[in-house]
């Protein structure tokens, strides 16, 4: 543990804080962009209905219905 501490202490990792922040903001921006895209609205509308119907599958998960997800 001691040697590891020395190594990490000497590595001068402070610039990684900025990298972490950039990654963080990029991920956040990506999610926002995805949410705001118009074309996803339909998918969201279908997803919203999921809890309300215990019987009907919204988008079946089999090969034939792959196209139906569009």
């Amino acid at each position, binding site marked *: *543990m001691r040697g*590891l*501490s*020395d190594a*990490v*202490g000497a590595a001068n*990792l402070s610039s990684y*804080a900025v990298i*972490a922040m950039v990654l*963080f903001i990029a*991920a*956040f921006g990506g*999610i*926002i*962009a*995805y*949410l*705001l*895209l118009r*074309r*996803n609205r339909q*998918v*969201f*509308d*279908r*997803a*919203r*209905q*999921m*809890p*309300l119907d*215990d*019987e009907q*599958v*919204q*988008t*079946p*998960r*089999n*090969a*034939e*219905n*792959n*196209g139906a*997800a*569009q």
Partner: protein
Amino acid sequence: MSTQVDQFKYDDKTVRAFVVATMVWGAVGMLVGIILALQLAAAELFYDTWLNDLPWLTFGRLRPLHTNAVIFAFAGNAVFAAVYYSSQRLLKARMFSDLLSRLHFWGWQLIIVSAAITLPLGFTQGKEYAELEWPIDIAIALVWVVFAINFFGTIAKRRERHIYVAIWFYIASVITVAVLHIFNNLVIPSGILKSYSLYSGVQDAFMQWWYGHNAVAFVLTTPFLGMMYYFLPKAANRPVFSYRLSILHFWTLVFIYIWAGPHHLHYTSLPSWASTLGMLFSVMLWMPSWGGMINGLLTLRGAWHKVAEEPVLKFFVVGVTFYGMSTFEGPMMSVKSVNALSHYTDWNIAHVHGGALGWVGFMTFGMIYWLVPRLFQAELYSKKLATTHFWVGTIGIVLYVVSMWTAGITQGLMWRAFDETGRLAYPDFVETVLKLVPMYWVRLLGGLMYLTGVLLMGWNMLKTWQRRKRPYDEPIFEAPALEGRYVPEPMPQTPLERDHAPVAGNAIKLQRLWMGFWHRRLEGLPLTFSVWVAIAVIVASLFEIVPTFLLDSNVPRIASVKPYTPLEVMGRDIYIKEGCYNCHSQMVRPFLAETERYGEYSKAGEFIYDHPFQWGSRRIGPDLHRVGGKYPHLWHVRHMENPRSTTPGSIMPSFPWLLKDKLEFSKIQGRVDALALTGVPYSDKAINGAEQSARAQAQLIAADVAKNGGPKDIADKDIVALVAYLQRLGTDIKLKAEAPTPDAQKAMAQLGGKK
């Protein structure tokens, strides 16, 4: 084209079991809470009566039972009920394995029973909400794995392609709780029900509150949000207001929550960069949390008339509103200057109970009232009784929270008050406690009302159960059969592809990325999705925790700080066993009001041998970090025997058994050896002769006590070890480090320095 059709049934038996367990453990946990509230309001009922001869009834031992019972037994079972009911229906699949469901249910109940036995007996790791000893921790990990296999197995065989947002919240909870539980409970055992945390001092504190805060996040928040996103639309019979907002809510919580833990350690010896980071992320949490609250409340738009008549919706509306209140109050309290006042006071207690009684409790009750008629397949016995439960409970919460706010702010202000001569206005700590007693009565009343509501619900449930359909109907559902092999959803064409634009493949890839198709892929691929959640959680944790463990500058060493002697180790174990940390902190913050009251502020380097740390989170009694040497040995003996004899008005329990119970000298060597394994640098003498060393030190203390007119037979009793530990607390930095060598002295003299 004809599609093959599957027929399947949902498993509601397990859900019924979890619902009943929720009710039973909820009532037990809250009853323990009532006893604790009574102990603070009417301490005289508990001391100087026969009740005082029952060690397991003291505040320090029962409080962990209360917190563990309501968090892991009440809320835990409620979460499992919600997950088992809603996942099957959202995924259109029966739970993966009935055997695993049974193992999960009974395993969890067994863990709760073992907690209910070991905690009052004083078997504890001494870290809040992580008190359970290592064999039980291993059992928890195993049961959690059973749950995870059952849950992810159900996702794997689902018939619905897209995974609804409630399931995302469950996935995040399952993964993160596993990570938190394992890392905070890494210990070196010393016997079957005793262990020492692998970490010490600042690092242990950091790990503990990373765990503690995220237990709030991933046991008491995210699964309940999953519950909200499923049961609220169900009960209102309307889709959630905005699915987009729910996705944003999910990802921001997963990204941000994990960083917020250090706000539990403001102004302690934690490096201030960590504390500031925790504060910033806590404040950032406010917005997504309110986004979620608004999303929940707006789901009811156009259905508000239903709230007036439907108790289920009443519970949900107030529950979600309390979510909003708590997630505003939390970020506010995490601001350092607010925290300077609120920390260690009943304000914290008000805050957690707003969240626990209002959000967790009411969401659970709403869910149960909605589920019970469906699970028992009979009409609810009495809607009126349910509405009464709602009102009794709501008024109970208001009384509870308002009285604890008042108590917290009162005590916080009294601690820091100075008179016009510049001295502490209330130098006697007990004065600031006695001021709170009227508020403690109001709190007790609030708690009683809340419990009454729960008992009404139990009665209502029992009566509904008596009307149940026998045998239960098991409706058969149909859905297109699952392919044997997973077929991913095909990529849609991008406009560039459609137009056969003469561009490089990369441009099309870029357009795909921009179209956001990746997230839908992600939703359809639960494994990948789970991996991303795990990465989000783990990476954030590493950025925060690793530097504290690896950068020496975060915990400056102090030469004069030495490991505890073997007798002091035993004393510290008694301190932990009796749960002293539930009422006493060991952390003097760097404020004038605190250094005046307690002495020099606490430094990180003083705790490097504290496995586990004992900084505490609430001062029902005064801070103890500088108590060493403050009073004679005899004072401590008398004080532990009966605190009223030295501090009139004290509400601390008496510990007469400490003067009678024999100290287990035979266990000392094993304990010292275990501590040495965690890295405490014990000398050869301690490693080989811990017991002799302890006996010798015990004789010295006992002789001093006897000489001053105290009891003459304490040299082999528990009390002698506890006194040794208390007298050691916070004294090391008062010692001079090794005396300078003659050469150094000469050099100093030449420089004109002092010897």
